[in-house]
């Protein structure tokens, strides 16, 4: 199936979903036990992108329409003791991402269209004006005995080694507060997957695409053919966090060429009293035989208004084991955080923190950076005010920022949101990429009805590198149960 045929198929499904939503919205022919959830997001953004040093700019006028219909029906009487009612549910979510903007060389009288495969001088195979995809399409049984849940179809799977979107199955069962199991398996959703996929969660490293008609592979030697990538794994959780909880997980990803990733994860958590918790996590890379991620955190709250946190994190960049990047010398990054938060009332919170970042580059020395941050949240006289600031200094170059966000209801159906920020940046790797950026934004959030909100935002920023930038965002959100 070619890319255009795929797009047409998904567009048809989109139209069917719209029809389904209309039927549901009109309340025609529904059984009383059926519950329907309609969730629609319409976002329009207008902004321009220009890279310093190039003549190209992108005038983006983007429309993102997401539409989802979820159906849910009880399949049994509620269990004894107010436990959840067993239900069957199904959901289909479709998304249209349309770019009305242009990619032009503005310094010449020439508009270079990146999405026209015939335009050899400007065609970019990764670019697309219209993307239609189905992020979710699943059927689920939930509220089963022992907190059981089984989901089939396209959905997200979470784990210590990251997120995956799968065309497959996942399930969870917790026979007691001390024991639970989770398992998943299926095909990883790639940009090239059937019915419209997005590459957000596919393994990083190899560019795989369906080529447009008339584009030969020789013309784009850096693009690989589509392939099916399989993933499977599971987690066992034992113990209770009141004493000690251990979670052991494994995830394997592979394709025709061989293994893409094989990771094991261990998490230990103890939260003996509300005032104290300690967690340690590690992810082991079985293929490379090394630590991929490690993290440890201690939280102490001597009083309900005061808490302290210390965290250390170690991360090794990871790619698809089929890509060459995985075999380069990749330097681990180690980060640390010390923070304190004081919140004497629900209307007031202030926090400060210090961060450090370290990487050893072997013979090429070390990289050290230190940062400080702070935030304040308070509500007074009808205003919700959020203040935050941070600063970093060291080998990665200085960055400092101060942000303030003030919200206030004007009338019961409209809320004003004003934001301002100042950033200072100085990139040591790019000559001339330094400056102080001042930005301000004004938005209004309209509550049109309880399930319907409209947000309008206008942003402006200025710095010496990019000059003035403007962005307009309109976001209509509808979330309703019938």
């Amino acid at each position, binding site marked *: 199936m070619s890319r255009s045929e795929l797009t047409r198929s998904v567009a048809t499904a989109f139209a069917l979903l719209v029809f389904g939503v209309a039927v549901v919205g009109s309340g025609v022919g529904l059984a009383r036990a059926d519950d329907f*959830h309609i969730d629609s*997001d319409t976002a329009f953004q207008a902004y321009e992108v220009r890279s310093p040093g190039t003549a190209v700019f992108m005038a983006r006028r983007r429309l*993102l329409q997401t539409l*989802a219909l*979820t159906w849910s029906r009880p399949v049994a009487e509620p269990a004894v003791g107010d436990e959840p009612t067993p239900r069957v549910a199904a959901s289909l979510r479709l998304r249209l991402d349309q770019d009305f903007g242009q*990619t032009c060389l503005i310094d010449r009288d020439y508009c270079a269209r990146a999405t026209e495969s015939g335009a*050899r001088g400007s065609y*970019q195979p990764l*670019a697309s004006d219209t993307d239609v995809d189905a*992020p*979710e399409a699943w059927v689920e049984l939930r509220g089963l005995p022992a907190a059981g849940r089984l989901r089939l179809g396209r959905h*997200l799977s979470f784990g210590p080694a990251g*997120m995956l979107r799968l065309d497959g199955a996942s399930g969870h069962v917790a026979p007691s*507060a001390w024991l639970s199991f989770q398992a998943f398996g299926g095909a990883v959703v790639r940009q090239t997957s059937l019915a419209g996929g997005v590459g*957000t*969660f596919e393994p*990083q*490293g190899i560019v795989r695409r369906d080529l447009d008609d008339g584009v030969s592979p020789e013309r784009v030697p*850096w693009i690989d053919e589509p392939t099916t990538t399989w993933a499977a794994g599971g987690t066992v959780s034992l113990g*209770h966090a*009141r004493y000690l909880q251990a979670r052991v997980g494994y995830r394997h990803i592979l394709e025709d060429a*061989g*293994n893409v990733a094989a990771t094991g994860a261990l998490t230990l*958590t103890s*939260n003996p009293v*509300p*005032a104290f*918790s300690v*967690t340690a996590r590690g992810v082991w890379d079985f293929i490379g035989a090394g630590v991929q991620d490690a993290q440890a955190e201690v*939280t102490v709250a001597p009083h309900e208004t005061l808490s302290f946190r210390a965290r250390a994190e170690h991360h090794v*960049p990871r790619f698809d084991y*089929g*890509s060459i990047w995985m*075999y*380069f*010398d*990749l330097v681990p990054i180690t980060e640390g955080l010390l923070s304190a938060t004081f919140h004497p*009332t629900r*209307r007031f*919170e202030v926090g400060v923190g210090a961060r450090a970042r370290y990487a050893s*580059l*072997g013979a*090429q020395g070390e990289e050290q950076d230190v940062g400080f941050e*702070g935030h*304040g949240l308070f*509500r*007074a006289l009808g205003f919700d005010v959020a203040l935050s600031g941070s600063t970093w*200094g060291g080998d990665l*170059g200085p960055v*400092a*920022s101060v942000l303030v966000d003030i919200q206030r209801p004007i009338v019961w159906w409209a809320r004003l949101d004003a*934001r301002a920020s*100042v*950033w*200072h940046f100085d990139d040591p*790797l790019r000559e001339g990429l330094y400056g102080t950026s001042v930005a301000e934004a004004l938005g209004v959030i309209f509550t049109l009805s309880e399930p319907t909100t409209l947000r309008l935002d206008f942003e402006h920023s*200025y710095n010496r590198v*990019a000059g003035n930038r403007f962005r307009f*965002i309109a976001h209509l959100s509808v979330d309703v*149960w019938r």
Partner: protein
Amino acid sequence: MSRRSAVLSASGVLVMLVALVSGAFVAFFGARAAGDAHSGDLSVSPIVFPAAEGFIRAAHDHPAHQRLRCERCHVGATDSTRAADVLAPREENCGSCHDDLMDRRLASAERCGYCHEGYGTGEGARGESAVRLPDRPQPRIHFSHQVHARNGVRCLACHARVDQEGDVPGARHLPTMESCHRCHGGPSPTAPSACATCHVALPDGRVRSHFPEGNLDPPAWLMDMNHDPDFLVRHRWVGADNGEACASCHEENDCSDCHDGRIRPGNRVHPNDYLTIHPQMARRDDHQCTSCHSTQSFCLECHARLGISSISAPDVRSPSRYHPPPSVWLRGPVLHGREARRSMTTCTSCHTENDCVGCHGVSGIGSGISPHPPGFRANCGRLLRSNDRACRSCHGDTAALAAICR
């Protein structure tokens, strides 16, 4: 860091601290001045128990009251099955002892205000000062006093300290989630522990967490799920470990709305002119960037269209170099090697494998320079057998490699 940069950074921090401190003073004293119904009750959620007014003043610690059973005044409490039931004492329940105060012909602040909090601030039918009508919004929780009473739960187990603190009962005497979890949670729950047992649920069984007054966030002590500003960083670990708990409130779309990189996720993640700042931030937080943005699609596509990638089409390719001059980038200090070690993810946001293979592959000009980490050869046999695609990309025939990499 240059001196100018250091001064500017220090100025930024100073401004931030001044703003924080002054904001803190304004907020703290502003909140106190405005009166905060829940200011001292951090564990009682104002979403679950919206602030109420017009309580009956009753000194629970008074010896006469302490001799009474709770149902003596709170008539019907042990038969109540809904949290919305009004169980405040009625006039006739108080009248058996306080009959002397109830002669309306002798109404005064001293007499009526003895029980009615805020007497004199309400508007009576005839316009004179009168009892302020109680404003008790319905709690957003399922609660049956009857079930708890039949299971032998004492009133004070949930309404802690109410017998010791006189005057007006209030939010501080309502049950907290922590107190509920003594039976409804923990290692050995003795009562149903599903979220929807107590919380208002949506038709699909998830807890309803969005309300006109705000969001119902989990308490700080529950599964490390404190939704504080740091949760923006921490939620990836919490979600990985407790995904089922997250799903009790959130649907999958709550994740993909941000992580699928389509809708700009507001001010908190990408503030100010992030387009200009993002190269520097990406080198610092590359693993955070890739949690939403795929380098091989999102980043590479945009960079290619803008003409700054090696795969940019000829007509749009930038004539100027993005990187420092070849004398330092490729030769001399070999800065590109250092940067590749430090943040390969950043490299892959513009470059494809062919760019590296062209030089570092066996037939390239840099074939004598191995990009592999020290000690790679000891492990390469296993890697070759696991997936030889990458080996073939650079070395071509893997048969020769197999002889070296055992």
